[in-house]
């Protein structure tokens, strides 16, 4: 079973993501900020990471940049999500190492389509 790490400071968002991704047969791990996520990844690299932008302690952009420097950190497919509509921010995320981008609020169809596109399903 593939593992997806859901990184978001909102428990509500993590819960929604968990429901959707469990339905797509992922095993779910959760982290409340970028630092927690980095600690998780150092112990066990997940197959996919659903990543929020604005978080306390370490934001999503900083996390993905640091992840990509870690040994094995190139492997996970990182899907960035934010309610931002700013194209600058999207390109910043992609240049920082994210593979895909989705907008909040997401739903099952969007996640399924983007994960399929990213070769995760």
């Amino acid at each position, binding site marked *: 079973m593939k593992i997806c790490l859901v990184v978001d*400071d*909102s*428990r*509500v*968002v993590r*819960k*929604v993501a968990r429901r959707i991704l469990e339905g797509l047969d992922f095993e779910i791990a959760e982290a409340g900020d970028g630092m927690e996520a980095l600690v998780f990844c150092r112990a066990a690299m997940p197959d996919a990471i659903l990543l*929020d932008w*604005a*978080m*306390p302690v370490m934001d999503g952009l900083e996390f993905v940049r640091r992840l990509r420097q870690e040994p094995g950190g190139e492997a996970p497919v990182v899907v960035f999500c*934010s*309610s931002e*509509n700013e*194209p*600058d921010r*999207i*390109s910043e995320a*992609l*240049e920082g190492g994210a593979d895909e*981008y989705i*907008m*909040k*609020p997401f*739903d099952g*169809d*969007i996640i399924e*389509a*983007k994960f*399929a*596109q990213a070769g995760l399903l």
Partner: protein
Amino acid sequence: MDNLVSDFVCEAADSLGGLQSGLARLAVDRSDRAALVEIQRRLHGLKGGCGFVGFNRAEALAHAGESLLAAVSNSPGPVSAAAIAPLGAMIERLGELFALAAETVGEPAGDDGALVALIEEAAVGLRGVRADFQPSEIKPAGLNAAAIVSERRVHAPWSGLDALARSLGDRLGKRIELMTGGDDLRIDPAAIPALRTALIALVRNACDHGVESPAERRAAGKPSRAILRLSVHLRGDGCAIELADDGRGIDPELIRQHCIAQGRIDAATAARLDEGELQAMVFAPGVTTAHTVTALSGRGLGLELVRREIEALGGAVELTSSPGCGARFLMRLPASVLATAAARGRVAA
């Protein structure tokens, strides 16, 4: 889902606490940029959550608040007093709303129009200050399609179209998501500008004219979020690129009436045109798929431009549409636009 709403209301209470203390810090020291950043982060998180539980009032308030905060953070110097009061009123209203929501486990009804307008006015006021300050920095968000697309990594003619669709949707009050899929193929760099121009015009056309307002979509039994699907496939010697939307479609009868009204064809000729021929007419100069000319409208030039660009590449474009269900634009392009090894192999063979 009730459980999710309860979780959200608890989390919202926490966010509100953060917002209140942030604003209190800012009221004491209006140069406290760290407090401003904290308020922005809290409000952004809160707004993100609203979308998942359908709290539309709170989302609209938070959205207005974010515009004001963006204007505040872009203004030089200490935070303007004109911004503090509307933010305070917003936090207070959100507090009332969430207190009721905790009892009813749902968003209470109410009208925040006046408060949203007040917050937005404050934002506009601050942006005005900034416009005088550094006019070159003001970007018409969502309008400069080519700039938006070129800002992103450019690998393919369709890179960045998803961001463009979202920006246009945001500007038009519609929720639009663009998905890309199909074969992994590369376009010859020489063909990219023409193809990009055509795709941008098609995406704009779909966002502006194809996709209905969320209310119209709900009334038609569709999800309020519209999906544009861009698919790219190797086909024969060349490739096929299709952009399909799930919007209102293009009614052949409207095209017929439009062509007659413009004196393009006479009524007798128009009566003889079949559906396919009428759909081909949308690519003629001056024909528009718009019901009304909007701020973003191509004013009838969009699809003609698409046809010209695609024909210049040696390709062809056609429309198929069923009214109410959406429109599909199919572009067929020759092998000369491809840069993939597969295509080169095929051409050589």
